[in-house]
């Protein structure tokens, strides 16, 4: 298994900026994180990642099958397909959007300027992603699109699916992006980075449904920079994978920028789901809200590590964070670390965390009305999670979440 930077073979390329990024990634990758790394304290990646998962995925020819996914949708959308980590390049460019395969986009300097705006040494999987940079989408949204933008990720074979997307929202644009991850029961590793830039007055609604194969590892690093009055809103539902991690790093760069995260996970078996957030309030009048709810059954394990940082002088900041977990069986466990790091005085920040079983009173209420125990439990857990997605404004997308 790949453990050290020396194990990475950097591919040759004739695009200078791509080559430079790969070298940079390799240099930033120090080693695979262990439980001694604070950021991966509860997520034993080394136990799950295997040799097969790092094999390069061969480009397969099931684009057509993938594209069928689109037909399942009962609404109109712009669709992009990633089949076993390879971007289906035959997409139609429409209404105020510039979409290019990342390697193509890198021939132009401007795109290169939007990649790796973070310290990759602190994000080993992002560094690894850079070192293997090949596949990904460069998407610039210049006008508010009339339809949601869908990203379908399909995994049918074992191996590494290394994807790096860059998404730019221009001034005043509102867009909806939906990511759907699905896969077969193969030993594969999805390593995704989404680097997102929300310009002034723009707003992005970022949805993610993750249902990877049960032997797979899924690590997603999402980073958003939000400028003044901009808004990044995210809804995440995770239930698949042997190990999955949704990491969200948000920089509220200018005044009145805001970020919202609503995440849920529902897991059983030996699944581990990790939600890690880091929200940096860098300027005054910035707001963030995070609500994360998890239902953990059988021997599954839920992990939440959330951090709110308020920089010096970022006064009038509001930061809220709440994590609630339901443990449904004796083998289930949850590890939570909600963190506040505050360097400004005029702020209102709070976090809360609770965990426990379903309420006996609520169960009794339902059972006394003639509902069997299993049904009652299901109703209560669904009701518990449902609140996370209540605020989704697009009914079609809300439907996707409710029927996921």
């Amino acid at each position, binding site marked *: 298994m790949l453990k050290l930077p020396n194990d990475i073979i950097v591919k040759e390329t004739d695009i200078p900026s791509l080559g430079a990024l790969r070298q940079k990634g390799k240099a930033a990758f120090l080693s695979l994180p262990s439980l001694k790394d*604070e950021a991966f304290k509860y997520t034993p990646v080394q136990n799950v990642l295997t040799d097969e998962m790092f094999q390069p995925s061969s480009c397969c020819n099931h684009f057509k099958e993938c594209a069928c996914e689109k037909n399942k949708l009962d609404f109109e959308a712009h669709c992009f397909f990633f089949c076993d980590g390879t971007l289906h390049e035959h997409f139609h460019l429409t209404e105020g959007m510039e979409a290019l395969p990342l390697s193509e986009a890198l021939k132009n300097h401007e795109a290169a300027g939007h990649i790796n705006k973070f310290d990759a040494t602190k994000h080993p999987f992002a560094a690894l992603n850079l070192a293997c940079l090949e596949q990904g989408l460069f998407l610039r949204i210049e006008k508010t699109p009339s339809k949601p933008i869908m990203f379908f990720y399909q995994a049918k074979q074992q191996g590494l699916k290394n994807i790096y997307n860059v998404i730019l929202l221009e001034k005043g644009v509102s867009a909806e992006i939906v990511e759907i991850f699905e896969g077969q029961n193969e030993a594969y590793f999805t390593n995704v980075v989404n680097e997102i830039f929300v310009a002034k007055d723009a707003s992005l609604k970022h949805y993610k449904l993750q249902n990877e194969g049960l032997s797979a590892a899924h690590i997603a690093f999402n980073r958003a920079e939000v400028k003044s009055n901009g808004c990044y809103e995210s809804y995440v539902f995770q239930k698949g994978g042997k190990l999955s991690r949704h990491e969200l790093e948000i920089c509220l760069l200018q005044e009145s920028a805001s970020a919202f995260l609503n995440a849920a996970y529902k897991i059983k078996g030996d699944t581990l789901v990790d939600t890690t957030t880091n929200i940096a309030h860098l300027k005054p009048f910035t707001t963030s809200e995070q609500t994360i709810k998890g239902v953990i059954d059988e021997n599954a394990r839920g992990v939440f590590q959330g951090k709110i940082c308020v920089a010096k002088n970022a006064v009038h900041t509001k930061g809220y964070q709440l994590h609630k977990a339901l443990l449904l069986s004796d083998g289930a*466990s949850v590890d939570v670390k909600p*963190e506040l*790091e505050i360097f400004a005085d005029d702020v209102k920040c709070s976090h*809360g965390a609770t965990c*426990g079983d379903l309420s006996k009173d609520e169960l009794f209420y339902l059972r006394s009305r003639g509902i069997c125990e299993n049904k009652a439990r299901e109703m209560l857990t669904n009701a518990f999670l449902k609140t996370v997605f209540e605020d989704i404004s697009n009914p079609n997308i809300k439907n996707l979440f409710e029927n996921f």
Partner: protein
Amino acid sequence: MVQKPNIEDLSGDKYKYGFVSDIEVETAPKGLNEDIIRLISSKKDEPDWLLERRLRAYRHWLTMVEPKWAKLTYEKLNYQDLFYYAAPKQKAKPKSLDEVNPEILKTYDKLGIPLKEQEILAGVVAVDAVLDSVSVATTYRSKLKEMGIIFCSISEAVKEHPELVKKYLGLVVPYSDNFFACLNSAVFTDGSFVYIPKGVKCPMELSTYFRINAQNTGQFERTLIVAEEGSYVSYLEGCTAPMRDENQLHAAIVEIVVLKDAEVKYSTVQNWYPGDSKGKGGVYNFVTKRALCKGENAKVSWTQVETGSAVTWKYPSCILAGNNSSGEFYSVAITNNFQQADTGTKMIHLGQNTTSRIISKGISAGFSNQTYRGLVKIAKGATGARNHSQCDSLLIGRTCGSHTVPYIENENKTAVLEHEATTSKISEEQLFYCRQRGLNEEQATQLIVSGFCKEVMQKLPMEFAVEAAKLINISLEGSVG
């Protein structure tokens, strides 16, 4: 308008315990090696088994590295540049307080602990006073002895009650526990030993005052409290040190063993010298405190008021092993100027129906930084465990920082855990309300802060509550405006 004094003008000079007493001391040579440890051990006339333990700890310490995970930045300590033993010179062991060096008694008198008076007056507190490395006087021993309570310095306990010390020392905090605990296990010099026999409720508060006096000395005291079945004790600890430009090291261990149905209340007012207003000097306070609730229905309560020290690294913990046992942690931490505190607690639930409660109030002012770091762990077998944690922070001024890092690990579905934390500044409305009623800004702040801390202050024994309330006001003086 009245000119408000700057932060720099005040605070640092407010440390009223900053005097140095001129007491002749006997020190071991600087530095740390096996010979020094042998010297400490022989000075204290220790049995071989204890020396063996010390050496084992020292050898293990050599293999350890200083922990870096805390949110603290301080100059690295040179462990070879410290005195590991400093004792007031005394010919023979004093039999009564009259034989104790008057200069020492004067020191404690200045600190507000009139040992002598207490021997005469019917006080309510029994005191063990520890100067630099050695326990100088313990009051009320005879009275306690009648009830079977042992309250003496640890070095006496080693001689007089070796079976108890051997059984319990290192039981809760083994030498290999952490870097500073390991160092302490190798070089600890003195501290208090408390043993409450079965069914005895200790009628008075037991108290220890720690004082670092000599220059460049590290203080490594060790406290061991054993509460037998059905007993009760309330124990107080106070600490001060002179103002010096160098940083002084204080690395202590407190171990508490609570057996079935017993209860121990441990209160600390920590007021080591915090350094001056420029952040120079001050005590490095690296303390390991842990209680083991060994029997059923055992109860431990930690209450701490932390106002001193340049750097604090302290996590009083409870291991709730007995069924139905409970642990409590009440803390007020105040940092000003360049103080740094990384403090909190660990509640480890092992037994069934164990409960724990954490209330932590942090106030940062000036350029200080404060972190609450806590762990609540529910093991698989801890059915019906219950925890409630609340951490509130108050920020005064724009240059300070306040951080909260709670860790919650739950492996049992029947456990119910709640954690809440808030951070804010003193609200304009509250200030305005007070000012309208004629208080100036500083008084208003003090009033609001004491209200903020009230929940914890109420848990302190009477004798300490008044002193602690004053201390909070002194610590915050000059931080407003």
